[in-house]
């Protein structure tokens, strides 16, 4: 089977590898996640060694998996909210700005090929950065007692969550010619979906249920607990499918209008 989107994927990957922005963003992401992971470990160590502090914080028992593993992957998923827009902002906005978009659509590619090629390229770069974070697992195994199946699910969850973020970032990039606007738009959509469950506070029970079902945070948190649920994986796949579908429609609309 021939992957029609592969030429676009290859071109995008090359473009990413020569872009200094990507390395700066990756370095910042690793710095922030490393710093926060260090903070989580140090706090856990402090709680473990100081019974009074532990009582003050209301912990009867300290579980490494619950306190360190879950919090680490929660932090990673949260940081991705900020990092992904930086990776996806240029995907289509730059093409439109520089005029290469018209050239791209004149080539024998379907809209789906363009969208999938760009999506997988951005996702591959992000997955590579998440892959670098795999050394955190070694750190946890060396210095603590993590439940490795939980680590596996939480880590897998970060890859699933990242796919949804990239798809939304790509959609935002298709809506504008300005990269900064695309990044802000992606961030606003992601943050909105992340926080929408918190709107359930002023909502009645029925609406609260719907708002929580839409919440990125609620679904991503289940992975960090070591839970792999059809509902959560299905939710992120749904977000990816809808975002990519809408990106295709936006491209189609632009082509038809022209």
């Amino acid at each position, binding site marked *: 089977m021939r992957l029609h989107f592969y030429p676009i994927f290859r071109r995008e990957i090359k473009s990413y590898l020569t872009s200094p922005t990507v390395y700066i963003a990756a370095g910042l992401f690793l710095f922030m996640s490393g710093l926060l992971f*260090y903070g989580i470990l140090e706090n856990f160590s402090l709680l473990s060694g100081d019974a009074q502090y532990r009582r003050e914080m209301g912990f009867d028992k300290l*579980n490494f998996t619950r306190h360190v593993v879950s919090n680490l992957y929660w932090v990673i998923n949260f940081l991705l909210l900020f990092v992904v827009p930086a990776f996806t902002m240029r995907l289509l906005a730059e093409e439109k700005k520089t005029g290469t978009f018209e050239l791209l659509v004149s080539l024998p590619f379907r809209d789906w090929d363009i969208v999938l090629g760009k999506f997988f390229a951005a996702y591959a770069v992000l997955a590579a950065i998440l892959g670098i974070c795999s050394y955190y697992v070694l750190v946890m195994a060396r210095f603590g007692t993590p439940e490795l199946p939980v680590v596996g699910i939480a880590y897998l969850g970060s890859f699933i969550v990242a796919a949804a973020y990239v798809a939304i970032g790509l959609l935002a990039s298709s809506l504008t010619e300005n990269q900064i606007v695309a990044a802000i738009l992606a961030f606003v959509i992601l943050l909105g979906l992340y926080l929408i469950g918190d709107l359930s506070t002023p909502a009645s029970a029925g609406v609260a249920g719907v708002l929580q079902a839409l919440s990125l945070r609620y679904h991503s948190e289940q992975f960090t607990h070591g839970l792999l649920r*059809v509902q959560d994986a299905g939710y992120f796949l749904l977000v990816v499918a809808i975002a990519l579908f809408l990106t295709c429609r936006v491209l189609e609309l632009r082509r038809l209008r022209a």
Partner: protein
Amino acid sequence: MQIRPLRIVSYVGFLLLLSGLVATGLHGRFTSITAGVSALGLATSLLFFAPRATRNIKLYAAFFVYSSLVIGTLVLLFLILERHGWQYDATRNKRYSLTPITRNFLKRLPQPVHITAFVTETERDQARLLLEQYATASPKVSYTIANPFREVGLARRYSLQVMPGDIFIETVTTSTESRARLARVNRLREEDITNGIVQALRDQDIVLYFLVGHDELPLERSTALATLAGQRVSVRDLSWVKDQLERMGIRVVPLSLAQRGKVPGDASAVLWVGPRADLSGLEAQTLRQYLENGGRALFLLTPDIPQATGEIASVFRNTADLLARFGILLPNEIVARVGASQPGADHFSIPVGLLSHPITQISVEDPLFFVYARPVQPATVLPSDARVDVIAQSSPDCVRLSSGEIATALVRKQDLSKVFSPQEVGAIPLGVASLRLDPNQSEEKATRIVVFGNADFVSSERINQKAWLLFNNSINWLVRAGELLPIPSTDIENTPVVLTDGEKQFLFLVMVILVPTIVGLLGLGYSLARREQQ
């Protein structure tokens, strides 16, 4: 002037959005209507940004309809998927999954149940995660999560003082005439919610009366009292059992027969656990009347041997007479192990085997020991309407010791294998279940009695899972009021980690400085080199 329909629709959208938000503000919260109006308003107001050319209106309409259809189909698929939820819980003790006991119970739910959990906003996700599993496990379970301070109307439906953490479980009946039963629990944990459902489904409340006034095992925690009295701290009490029973929605009430003169009418069963003194004649008569009228009772009777004399101190003459009427014999003896390797106290630690009976259907493999046990056995001649089954017996290397010389010899640490002949050694019955039913009456009126020759196996000090299940099944068999589900707690493991200063410095260096810097600098160098090449 050119009329632009999209603009007009977008203005209407703005108005809808505005009115939805104003209504929300006036109401204090989003309702289904205000949220729907706001969402519709937001969607239509976005048309304001649509290009001016109205010639494209068909294009946009087609785009909108097509996208809606595809997205709607995807959402529908997701909702179907969500209803048949599957999950893999990677935690070691499966702390985010329902136990098989609960899942089996939910599959057999006889009628729909609705759970209303009042929680704070911080607990909302936790509540949803747990209750979602109940709803997924059974289509007959539905749930609502609400904030008692915001959903005041809903809270008032249940009680005037609803606080975060209160969970109400009610049966849902189709008939408007029948009143739904309501159970209230106050912990967001599986064991509480499952037993809350059991409680809501029950025809009536279970009330267990624990007899007091004969130096029984105390119902309350005895450590504080022992410490105050300057004694060695022990937990020979029933506080753990009491907590578990109350968690299952069962009322536990102390009862002094001497003071009250009768067993209250709402008693589901009477329990007498670890007394050191016999019933008075009047108390025995009161209890006999209660039992003959279809009462239920559990007797846990431990013998105790003062070390100085070797005599069996507790002589339960009135109790033995009472039980004899129902075909149960309570000899004034204790059971000892001949085969115990160490002389002395180990002779009295009796391994217990369970015989086939509804009470003994326990799959747990924990060992069960009675430390000091008295024989309990069926009478050779039973009343015509009574049936007595032995449900527990000692290991086959045991003998009966009567009060007097042999017991004294034992206390002096003699080797029992030299005292007894092999014919006297064997398995000795330690627990019986008696069912006495008048053929002209319904089974609900049957007298049910369970007797074990030991009480300490349910004390907080000694109880294990098997002992708890044996006790729980005994109550279940006695009261015959639906199920009591002993859900084991899924406590987390304590796995603290203390890092040394050197380890902390190493981790900081690697995770915060080295790795990010190496990735950033190497990447930048590579990208600049590639650019120069190009």
